[in-house]
């Protein structure tokens, strides 16, 4: 139970088989209809302004000087950037912990108010991209060590999106296996050499 590739791995598998299927000649129309139904979820247009307004309110109550900027919306995902100057570090927190907490609350708000699951992705001053890049180089370094020594390496705790990034990185890799282990905030990835 504690060691699995995660829910997204499963989703990815689904998407892949769907792609293959649509290329083949005897594609079943029923399957296609199902897929498009999944892709076009009716998103309440009130969610986006609600998110912006609520975030702005929370930021003001926290006493942060922050500009809430809508970055992009696609499907059931909304990307919001919190542009801050002096409060940026505080807003992100150690290992993005604080940013993650605000994101958790916003998702809970939307689920409660609209009864709709909606992926709000919060960033602050491009932090997430920088973090991904630095994580990626750390992970690749660790992977090299695993290949050289044959011993497994336990990486620092990561959130689900970051763990997914690591799993995707080693998908189909002939030398490395990636496994998630641990619970809650301590959930982490273990890199092991394939036997």
């Amino acid at each position, binding site marked *: 139970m504690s060691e699995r590739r995660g829910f997204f791995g499963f989703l990815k598998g689904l998407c892949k088989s769907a792609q293959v299927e649509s290329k083949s000649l005897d594609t079943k129309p029923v399957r296609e209809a199902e897929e498009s139904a999944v892709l076009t979820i009716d998103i309440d247009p009130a969610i986006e302004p609600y998110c912006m307004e*609520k975030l702005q*309110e*929370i930021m003001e*109550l*926290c*006493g*942060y000087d922050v500009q809430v900027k809508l970055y992009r919306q696609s499907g059931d995902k909304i990307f919001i950037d919190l542009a801050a100057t002096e*409060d940026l570090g*505080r*807003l992100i*927190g150690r290992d993005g*912990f*604080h940013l*993650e*907490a*605000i994101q*958790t*609350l916003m998702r*809970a*708000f939307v689920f*409660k*108010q609209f009864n709709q699951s909606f992926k709000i992705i919060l960033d602050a001053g491009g932090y997430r991209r920088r973090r991904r890049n630095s994580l990626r180089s750390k992970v690749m370094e660790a992977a090299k060590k695993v290949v050289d020594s044959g011993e497994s390496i336990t990486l620092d705790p990561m959130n689900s999106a970051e763990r997914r990034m690591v799993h995707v990185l080693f998908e189909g890799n002939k030398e490395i296996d990636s496994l998630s282990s641990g*619970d*809650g*905030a301590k959930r982490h990835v273990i890199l092991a050499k394939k036997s």
Partner: protein
Amino acid sequence: MKALVYTIVKELVDAPDEVVIKETAGDTIVILEISVAPADVGKVIGKDGRIANAIRTVVKAAAAKHDKRVTVEIVTD
């Protein structure tokens, strides 16, 4: 800090009118006690305490900006 916690909590519950935040403030330490309708307690705590911990993280960070230390408790009685 009280207004911040109130704004967050009332957004999560079915009965926002029953949300009460009690603030006990010392020089540097602030204790915030959240009480909600019995049916709403689970919504404020969340699965494995995810929501409660997120509230604590957000409130603590905001308080730290004003050099305060905050304890957030969810009161059930």
